[in-house]
């Protein structure tokens, strides 16, 4: 029922906690303030890992959706992982937008700008919010999984658009600090270490939460099946509607 064996999950949980603790120490105290942006740049240690994890989460959703759509690999596990990963992706995208807004206010002077990177990220957020809504529409489990998988693959088209938006258009948002068009990282020393620590801590957290969300998804499916059985049993136990032949009408005797 669980995605990872229980002992692995426990070790992963503690490792994630330690990594997040180290990130707090390095991000808020050890890393020096930026020469231009001063301490506002400390939001980068959360904003960038959150954005990368959103990409990863949506990639996993797209991959597992494709695996579900392909008949040879079709299994319920892929549908559960796709849904769980998309939910995490939405959380990380939401955090990316809010943290970016908090960072933008002191540096750009505005909470929001109609900038290509910001707009495409907001579109990504709403696309996957729609995907999660689509998953909640009641119906046959297989049909629901298939239509969700197709929607996930369509929504994933926006991920490379978000990533390359800063290269394709003139934007207020800066180019990538690490994965830029020159593939030359513009960060080093303790700042680079803290950024990579953030990416590591968030990746561990993603795997840990994915495992937990998967477990909940399976439990919810079991619960739905049990509730359906109970509802059918109750329905069968009820007296059936009686047909009154003389009157030619159906009378509900319940």
């Amino acid at each position, binding site marked *: 029922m669980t995605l990872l064996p229980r002992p692995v999950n426990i070790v992963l949980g503690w490792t994630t906690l330690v990594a997040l603790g180290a990130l707090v120490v390095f991000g808020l105290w050890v890393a020096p303030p930026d020469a231009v942006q001063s301490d*506002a740049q400390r939001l980068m240690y959360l904003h960038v890992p959150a954005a990368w994890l959103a990409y990863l989460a949506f990639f996993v959703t797209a991959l597992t959706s494709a695996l579900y759509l392909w008949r040879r690999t079709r299994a319920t596990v892929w549908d559960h992982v796709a849904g769980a990963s998309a939910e995490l992706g939405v*959380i990380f995208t939401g955090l990316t937008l*809010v943290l970016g807004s908090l960072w933008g206010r002191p540096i750009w002077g505005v909470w929001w700008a109609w900038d290509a990177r910001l707009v495409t990220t907001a579109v990504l957020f709403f696309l996957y919010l729609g995907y999660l809504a689509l998953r909640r529409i009641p119906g046959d489990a297989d049909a629901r999984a298939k239509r969700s998988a197709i929607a996930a693959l369509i929504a994933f088209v926006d991920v490379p658009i978000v990533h390359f938006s800063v290269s394709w258009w003139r934007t207020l948002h800066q180019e990538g600090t690490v994965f830029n068009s020159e593939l030359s990282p513009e960060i080093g020393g303790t700042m680079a270490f803290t950024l990579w620590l953030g990416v590591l801590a968030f990746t561990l957290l993603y795997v840990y939460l994915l495992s*937990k969300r998967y477990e909940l998804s399976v439990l919810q499916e079991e619960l739905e099946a049990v509730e359906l059985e109970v509802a059918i049993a109750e329905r069968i136990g009820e007296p059936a509607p009686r047909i009154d032949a003389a009157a030619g009408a159906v009378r509900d005797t319940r």
Partner: protein
Amino acid sequence: MRYAEYVVTGWVLTGAVLGGYRLWLTVRARRAREVLARR
């Protein structure tokens, strides 16, 4: 710390969101397990 109000808000908010989500998962899973055990 300069811009402390933005930096602290961002870090606290991130902790609250991720911690809250972790808690929500635990509570929902526990409730589901309890209902399944009763049935």
